C-alpha cells in the first residue's frame, strides 16, 4: 500500500509544477487508497492462511509456531471459528489455504463443491464431553438430570460440530433407553446456543450455567475450571477432525507442508498434549 501512495506522489511530482491543488489531490488520493486497501499489512512472500475449528485454537497455535521453525520462509496466519463459519467463508471465496474442520460434514460439503484440492483426511479425534463448572452448583451427574426444571444448559447451534455431536449423543442415548422425550426436554433447558465451542466453554467457566456440551480438550484447557461428567457408552459419538488443502492453494508447497506437519509425529505429539486422540 505504501508503494501505491508513493507511486501516486511521484506521478504528481513529475506531472508538473508543485501546485497546491496537486498536493491536495495527492492527499485525497492517499486517503482514498488507505480507505480502499483497509488494514492490509505487508503480504509475506510465503504466507498461508489456515482456517481451523475453534477447538483447535491452542493446539494449532503451537503447531503453527513449530511449523514456522522448521520452515522459516513460511508464515502461518490462523483463523479460528466454528467449522460451519469457516466453511461458509470458504464458500464465499475467503483466502483460505488449509481447512481443518471439527467434523466430516463441513469438509465433505466443501469437497463436493470442488473447493478442496486434496481429499479431507482425519488427523486427530476429539471426544464430546458433558462438562459442569468445577463447583457443580446443581450437583449434576447424569444425562437424565439435564432435564430437571431448574437446570440451565449451554450448547452449540445445530450447525456447529460440537452442537451436532451433542444432539447425536442425546438422540443415541434416548434411543438406547427408550425415552422419546429426552432430547426435547434437554433442549428446552438450553439457555443459549453458541456458534462455537469456545463460547460454550466460556459461559461454563463463568459459572453462569449449570452444564454444557464441549470437547474433552476444552475441559483439559480449562485448568480445572471445568469438570467432565462421564457419558454413558450409548451416548459416545466419534468426533474425527479432517484437514485438507483448499482449491485456491492447489499445488502450493507451503500448504501441503503444513498438512504434512500436522500428520507428522511432531504435529501429532502436540495434538496429544492438548488432549486429542491421534492415529499414530
Amino acid at each position: 500500500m505504501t508503494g501505491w501512495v508513493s507511486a501516486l506522489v511521484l506521478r504528481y511530482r513529475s506531472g508538473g509544477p508543485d501546485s497546491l491543488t496537486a498536493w491536495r489531490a495527492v492527499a485525497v488520493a492517499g486517503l482514498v487508497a488507505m480507505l480502499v486497501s483497509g488494514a492490509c499489512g505487508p503480504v509475506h512472500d510465503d504466507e498461508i492462511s489456515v482456517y481451523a475449528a475453534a477447538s483447535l485454537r491452542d493446539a494449532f497455535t503451537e503447531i503453527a509456531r513449530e511449523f514456522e521453525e522448521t520452515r522459516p520462509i513460511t508464515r502461518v496466519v490462523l483463523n479460528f471459528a466454528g467449522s460451519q463459519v469457516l466453511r461458509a467463508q470458504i464458500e464465499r471465496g475467503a483466502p483460505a489455504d488449509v481447512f481443518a474442520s471439527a467434523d466430516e460434514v463441513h469438509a465433505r460439503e466443501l469437497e463436493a463443491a470442488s473447493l478442496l484440492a486434496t481429499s479431507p483426511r482425519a488427523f486427530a479425534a476429539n471426544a464430546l464431553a458433558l462438562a459442569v463448572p468445577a463447583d457443580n452448583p446443581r450437583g449434576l451427574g447424569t444425562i437424565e438430570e439435564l432435564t430437571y426444571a431448574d437446570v440451565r444448559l449451554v450448547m452449540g447451534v445445530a450447525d456447529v460440530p460440537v452442537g451436532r455431536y451433542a444432539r447425536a449423543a442425546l438422540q443415541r442415548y434416548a434411543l438406547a433407553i427408550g425415552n422419546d422425550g429426552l432430547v426435547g426436554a434437554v433442549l428446552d433447558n438450553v439457555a443459549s446456543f453458541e456458534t462455537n465451542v469456545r463460547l460454550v466453554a466460556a459461559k461454563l467457566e463463568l459459572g453462569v450455567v449449570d452444564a454444557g456440551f464441549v470437547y474433552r480438550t476444552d475441559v483439559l484447557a480449562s485448568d480445572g475450571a471445568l469438570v467432565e461428567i462421564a457419558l454413558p457408552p450409548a451416548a459416545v459419538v466419534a468426533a474425527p477432525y479432517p484437514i485438507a488443502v483448499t482449491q485456491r492453494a492447489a499445488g502450493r508447497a507451503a500448504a501441503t507442508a503444513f498438512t504434512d506437519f500436522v500428520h507428522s509425529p511432531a504435529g501429532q505429539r502436540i495434538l496429544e498434549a492438548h488432549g486429542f486422540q491421534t492415529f499414530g
Partner: protein
Amino acid sequence: MRRAQTFTWGGLVVGLSAAILVAFIGIPVGALIARGFIEGDVLEALRSPVATTALWLSLATSAIAVAVAVALGTPAAYLLARRSFPGRSIVDTLIDLPVVLPPVVGGLALLVALGRNGVIGGPFDAAGVDVAFTTGAVVLAQLFVAVPFYIRAARAGFESVDRRLEAVSATLGAGGWRTFRRVTVPLALPSLIGGAVMCWARALGEFGATIMFAGNVFGRTQTMPLAILEAIETDVDAALAIAIVLIVLAFAGLLVFKGLARLGGRVL
C-alpha cells in the same frame, strides 16, 4: 471577487465533505438492500418464522427498554442538569461508560453481576428466579447500552430550559412537581423525544451485550441482530433479507419519531 471565490472554495469543501459522508453511509446500506433484493427473497424472509419471531421480540423488548429508560432516566437527567452533589462528575461519567464499552463487555459485566453466581443474580437464583438468559435479560442488555443516549439528550434538554420560567411558575403558586410537569417537561420535550428515539434505535440494534447476557435462543432471546448473525453463518441471503427488514424498520422509526420531536417543539 476574491471574497466570492474564497466563499466558493469553502462551500465546495463543505459540500464535498458532506457528500462524501452521505455516500459513505448511503452506498453500503444501498448496496446491501440492492444485493438483498437481487439475491434473496425479502418477502419470503418476512414470512419465515425466524424473521417474524425475531422482529416481534425486537419490537417488544426495545419498546420496554425505552419505557424503562424514560422512567428511570428522566429523574437522573434532571438531577444531573439541576443539582450539584458530591460525586456528580463520577456519576455523569459512569452513565456515559456503556457508550464507550464494547457491548460484549457490557454483557459480560451484566452476566458476572446478574448470572447465577453473581452478587445480584445469586440471591435471585436462590429465590428461584432466573435473570440471565431470559427475555428480561434482553431488555436489561438493551437498557444498559442504550440508556446513556436518553440521559444525555434529556439532560441537555433540561439545561436548555430557562430557569426564570420555572421561578415564575413557582411565584404563581405552582409546586415543584407541577412546575416540572407543566413548564420544564414541555419545554424540554423535543430533547426528551429525540433522546428516547436514539435510545430506541440503539436498543433495536443491540447485539453484543444481548448475545453475551441473554444468550441466543429462538423465540426467547433471539432478536433481529442475533437472527441476522446466525443466518449469516449459514445462509447469507436470508441474513440480507432480515437485515433489510431491520433497516427499513429502523429508518421509518427514526423518520417518524424525528418528525414527532420537531412537531412537539413547534406546538409548544
